[in-house]
């Protein structure tokens, strides 16, 4: 299973990077969303997908899934939510102000001076 997941995660990352490198603001945001999904799955897979029960102490429990990657991912999920929301607002605010969503037109340099 881990082997297949490795390829699925690779595909997610590839799609995410491809979207992030596009010109459209919205696609970039979607790309970052995909990137965080990929990263979460990657952490989970790296920790191993075995384990027969959730990492909760119960009577007669045998082997747990590894709790540490899960804790890390939980943190990451919430952060990525904050970041996505931030990007979303940043994107539409800059769209309102600059009246374009093409980031190749949004250059910080003073070339046009």
């Amino acid at each position, binding site marked *: 299973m881990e082997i297949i997941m490795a390829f699925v995660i690779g595909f997610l990352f590839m799609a995410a990077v491809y979207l992030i490198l596009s010109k459209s603001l919205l696609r970039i945001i979607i790309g970052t969303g995909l990137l965080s999904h990929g990263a979460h*799955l*990657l952490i989970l897979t790296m920790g*191993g997908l075995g384990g027969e029960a959730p990492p909760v102490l119960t009577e007669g429990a045998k082997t747990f899934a590894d*709790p540490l990657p899960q*804790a890390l991912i939980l943190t990451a999920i919430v952060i990525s939510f904050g970041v996505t929301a931030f990007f979303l607002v940043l994107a539409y605010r800059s769209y309102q102000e600059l009246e374009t969503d093409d*980031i190749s037109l949004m*250059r910080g340099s003073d070339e046009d001076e």
Partner: protein
Amino acid sequence: MLQVLYIFIPMLAAILVPFLYKSIKNIHTGWFVLAVPATLVIIYASYIAKVAKGEVFQAELPWIPSLDISVVSYLDGLSLLFSLLITGIGSLVVLYSIFYLDKHKEKLHNFYVYLLLFMSAMLGVVQSDHLITLYFFWELTSISSFLLIGYWYTRDASRFGALKSMMITVGGGLMMLGGFILLSIMGGTYSIRELIVIAPDLVGHPLFTWSLVLLLLGAFTKSAQFPFYIWLPDAMEAPTPVSAYLHSATMVKAGLYLVARFTPIFAVSELWVWLVTGVGLLTLFWGSFFALKQTDLKGILAFSTVSQLGLIMSLLGGGAVAFHVNGAADLVFKFAAFAAIFHLINHATFKGSLFMIAGIIDHETGTRDIRKLGGLMSIMPLSFTVAAIGSFSMAGLPPFNGFLSKEMFLSAMLALNEFELFGFDTWGALFPIVAWIASIFTFIYSFYFVFRTFAGQYKPEQFPRKPHEAPIGMLISPMILAAFVVIIFFIPNLIGDTFVKPAVQAIQPFLYDSPSAIDIHVSAWHGLQPELFMTIGIVIIGVLLFVALPKWQGLYNLFPRSLTFNNAYDKIMQGLDVGLYRISRLYMTGSMRHYLLYMFSGIVAIVLGTLFVKDAFSISFEGAAPIRSYQIILIIVLVIGTATTILAKSRLTAIIGLGSVGYTVALFFVIFNAPDLALTQLVIETISVALFLLAFYHLPKLGKREERMRFQLNRAIISIAVGVMVTLIALSAHSQKLIPSISKYYKETVYSLAGGGNIVNVILVDYRGFDTLFEITVLSIAGMAILAMIKLRMNRKEKAHENK
């Protein structure tokens, strides 16, 4: 311990200054500040008697114990003399500034905070025994000097001067740090005293010459030696109390202190003697020669300071010669180090008073241009008297202290002529000649300064203000200093025994056991010696040249501007500016996508490189979890969802695609036994969808006509590379478990130590609580940022107003 705290008293007092300034408006803040250096003078004065007997005091305060760094206050003759100069002149300067800076117009809190900061830093420089803390205080003096020069920061010249001084002195300080580190590598210790003890072992070390040169670079930049002196004239943009304090009496002497302090370590080197003496003499001549070109009163004094610093520097070099002569204590060489310290004291007195007079003239007439000034003698008689005393002392005339130290300087230079090592027998004759010529110029500029200002024709129409004598408060400080100028002439041996000899013993510890062993007696009259004839020659030629000055001053304009060091500095700074800008423009294109391409390629290169170097490609299929059919279905859904986001034509489709990926990931969490994650992911996904819906109205469409992305090769290559990289990481991580999972510890202790059952949650709130704490902080920042972006923006009306 207490002794170390004395260093920090000014810094601690600086904290109170802004509050005093804000709350007590009627009383000039300077009066409160004055108490600080005045108290410290008394404290340090209590050490004088014991230190004069040769005792030393030491105290230590650990700072970074793990790196063996501590603040050590070490008071011997040299440190105490400097500490007294810093606090004594400091008191007079603060007193002077009370009348110089208007309490209603000036930002006094800034001024005094910087000044007190400087005072602490300077005390730290001269008392530190630890190389690293010495460096720390050294750079702190550069920074406070930067702040003080730029005190009137609205003026271009102030900012330029401040930056220039900082560039040069901080640059030199970094060199010095290099020298210090090499020293500590050679000697295995950071303590200066320990280094001095093992100094004979250091000489043969291959790094010895390097550390010597680097250390001297630090000293030369700080003490404005040739060719680094260029920052000092520009530093005259500082308020005059600062010029009097930092740029003549104390900070510029830090370089001299450094050379004096390290003489016992480096004096055995031929290079040291040549560099210190040679650069000192060159600076002496250069400064005195170009002082006559200046038209600004403070400019003259700046070049004069450069020149006098060179004089002391050359004397310190001469003092190092004593290490190469058997029985030096009996020979003429002994005068050099004594003269250096003696002149250092004298210079502080007469130059301090002259700077204050320059400030008074500026304050009362509104100009410092010597071409406009003249005939002020009858209007400002007190200022004239002080200026005349200071100038005559600087010119080396009796009955002022400058005469004594100048005579000793000439003796020392004549003695160098007779020194027979290092090729001095061929070049040695140059030393007295250069010294003599430079003294003539010193004589001329001293007269130039005082007589062009106070004698000659009175031209009131050229002054921005109607001139009158300064208020008495402003005159107190220069008058005290001028009084010292005269008094020292009559009691030179008292000063010599109390201050100079203990300091000399610190410079030449191998020659003398105690300060009283130094057999030097200063006298104004010592027979018809060559020194006396040289002085008479200086006076005669000096007077003649001064009278003829208007005829030959025009010669200075023949020097082309393009060949000056100032021009070189400007060119270097400009070149760096333009060159670095061009380089950064090569890759800083301003395009986000270019930056992202750099980053992704960089990450891929680094990670794949590491995998390759560490040979982490071996992939095993062991221990993998079994594959089940419903998992395959989920994977298919995930892939389809991902593909949808790439191929979607409309934004709604793309968002739905992303949502489907998110929910599938949640299902993955369910089947991989992560209920917490699954719950969180489900709820987050729901809220995200709501968020996208709310923001949907504002969002841009995908391209102008809602079209599919065009395929781009370089993007595709980078994305595939990243995908491959991540796959390899995942496979490698699965195949090679280098260290056992830490989770075992969590499982064992979760109930007994943390009293919980859900390990994931306990990790979040207990084991790794820091993560969570910072995470919610980040989350709050994101929330605040969103709030700010939407709520705190300017509306169009305000923006239109702004643009006007």
